[in-house]
């Protein structure tokens, strides 16, 4: 059995850790690291029967993830202190939001940049407030800057000059030029306050954003982690609210994200064993390409199937912008090489 399959099975709870041969762990650990999920796996297998050196490595990962999470929430607090005096409200997105809301998928999850969502009408003031509070532009060229401002769903990334941490300030969750336009006003106005006091998307919107980020925006790099987020959060939301799938369906239609959300649900069923309600199990012949892309890693952690990877890369651009604009963009980028 391939290492990536073993990794997925361990996460899904289909396979006992004690059934692995010692050397099977090489590939599992390598893949988990490549997917930035080693601490997630370490939490899943916290009480499993492991070789002593693997148990020690996993304990390191859990401790490190706890520190990283505290640092990520501190960064959110820093953003709050910069924006709150200006009366700018913001909603945490992705990793920091999951941590702020104390969700299961946050345990061990790597959190990169701080992602926040503000109203489009506040974006200029948010930019100024952050610049005044010590964030600065990551050096980029004028075309990239123009591109972000004209066409993207976020400001060009800002980095804090003393803490060296990045912040992405979004005004919606998909590029402006994307074929799909989610209702950004609804995302912000229907946000909820988490236990830690930070605003986060409501459960259905959070799952919509997760699916959009994974399937409508990117090229499925890091897809196993995004899919794990989706699987874990939907499981948690359903446990708290039996009507969750219906609400998710309704909300996905509002944002135009029903295809992405339904596909994410089917993929989480196929890979991680999610149980879906009637009406969500519809057959979809193209799912197989997504499944293959998600598990395209060998036991050295290398991406296999470069053509499939390339195809998903092209697809991500195809979704993001109309063809003539795509041609212009690629031409500019190519000339700058």
């Amino acid at each position, binding site marked *: 059995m391939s290492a990536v399959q073993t990794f997925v099975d361990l996460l899904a709870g289909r396979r006992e850790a004690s059934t692995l041969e*010692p*050397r099977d*762990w*090489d590939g599992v*650990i*390598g893949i988990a*690291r*490549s997917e930035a999920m080693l601490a997630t796996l370490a939490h899943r297998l916290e009480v499993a029967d492991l*070789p002593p*050196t*693997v148990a*020690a*490595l996993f304990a*390191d*990962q859990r*401790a*490190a993830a706890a*520190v*990283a999470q*505290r*640092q990520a929430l501190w960064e959110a607090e820093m953003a709050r202190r910069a924006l709150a005096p200006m009366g700018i409200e913001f909603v945490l997105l992705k990793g920091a939001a999951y941590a702020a809301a104390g969700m299961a998928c946050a345990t061990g999850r790597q959190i990169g940049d701080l992602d926040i969502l503000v109203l489009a009408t506040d974006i200029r003031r948010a930019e100024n407030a952050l610049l005044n509070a010590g964030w600065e532009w990551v050096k980029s060229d004028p075309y990239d800057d123009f591109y972000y401002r004209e066409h993207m769903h976020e400001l060009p990334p800002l980095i804090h000059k003393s803490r060296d941490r990045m912040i992405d300030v979004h005004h919606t969750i998909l590029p402006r030029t994307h074929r799909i336009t989610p209702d950004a006003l609804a995302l912000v106005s229907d946000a909820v306050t988490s236990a830690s006091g930070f605003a986060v998307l409501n459960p259905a919107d959070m799952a919509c954003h997760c699916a959009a980020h994974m399937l409508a925006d990117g090229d499925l790099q890091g897809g196993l982690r995004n899919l794990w987020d989706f699987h874990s959060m939907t499981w948690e939301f359903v446990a708290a609210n039996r009507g969750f799938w219906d609400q998710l369906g309704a909300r996905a239609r509002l944002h135009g994200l029903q295809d992405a959300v339904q596909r994410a649900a089917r993929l989480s069923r196929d890979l991680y064993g999610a149980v879906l309600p009637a009406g969500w199990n519809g057959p979809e012949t193209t799912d197989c390409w997504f499944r293959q892309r998600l598990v395209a890693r060998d036991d*050295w*952690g*290398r991406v296999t199937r470069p053509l499939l990877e390339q195809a998903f890369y092209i697809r991500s651009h195809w979704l993001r912008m109309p063809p003539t604009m795509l041609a212009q963009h690629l031409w500019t980028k190519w000339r700058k090489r």
Partner: protein
Amino acid sequence: MRHSIRIAVGPVHFRIGSDWTQPIAALKQLYVSYPQDEARPADATVRLFAARPWRRWVRPSVHIGGDFVVPDALPLPLSMGLLAAEMGMNLQVALGWRRHMLLHASAVARDGRALIMSGESGSGKSTLAALLGEGDWRLMGDEFTLIEPEGGDALAFPRAVSLKNEAIAEVAARVDAARLGPLMTGTPKGDIRHLIPRADAIAAMHEPARPALLLFPRFGGEAAIESMGEGEAFVRLTEASTNYVALGEAGFAALTRLVRETPAFGVSYPDSATGIALVEQLWAEAAK
């Protein structure tokens, strides 16, 4: 991958894969006397690979990959494959290891107590450690020293010592040629030749040592010793640590304790013999 090897250095177990046989063969020669545990799962993965299939043969160039990668890192020619492997191993430890606080520092030990030397590349910390390790010191490592966050002990990372430029002849004159790796000339870091640590240093690689003296050597200039305050030592070591920030409070506590409990000095020296004499002098005072 086509060729691979497993290497244990201190607490870290590496698996190194390569598209070519040469780097693996060179590693085998350097690490043949290290303890082998074929069944132990690896903590870290290093990959040496050709960016395009034909580049395995046509102007072969070695890209360094693994669990952690540096974007835009330049590849090395195949003749420097061993250096690529060394850089790959360092990278995985520097970016991935969390069990201990990592100091970019060399260390030697005597009577269960450690002398830790931190400095920029070119400060002579590797050369001093290598030369001391040929005397009555145990070489703990020339690149990383690991500090145990709970107890404060130093742990060894005795990889093959990376000798550079003038240090090569200086050390080669004193050791058995069988303990030296191939000479690599004209690398981005100058000439490089590896030294296999003495058998006793390898055998003792899991034995902790109590930090007793912190030195910040500087090669060149008049012989001088300058006592260093806790604050300066602390700041210098935060810069010398690759995971101080990632360890959070545990890193702060470990580093605070290290600089509070360990006397620190800046040392300038014009040549190795003087450097060693100054080290021995400070040790005699510190280790009283």
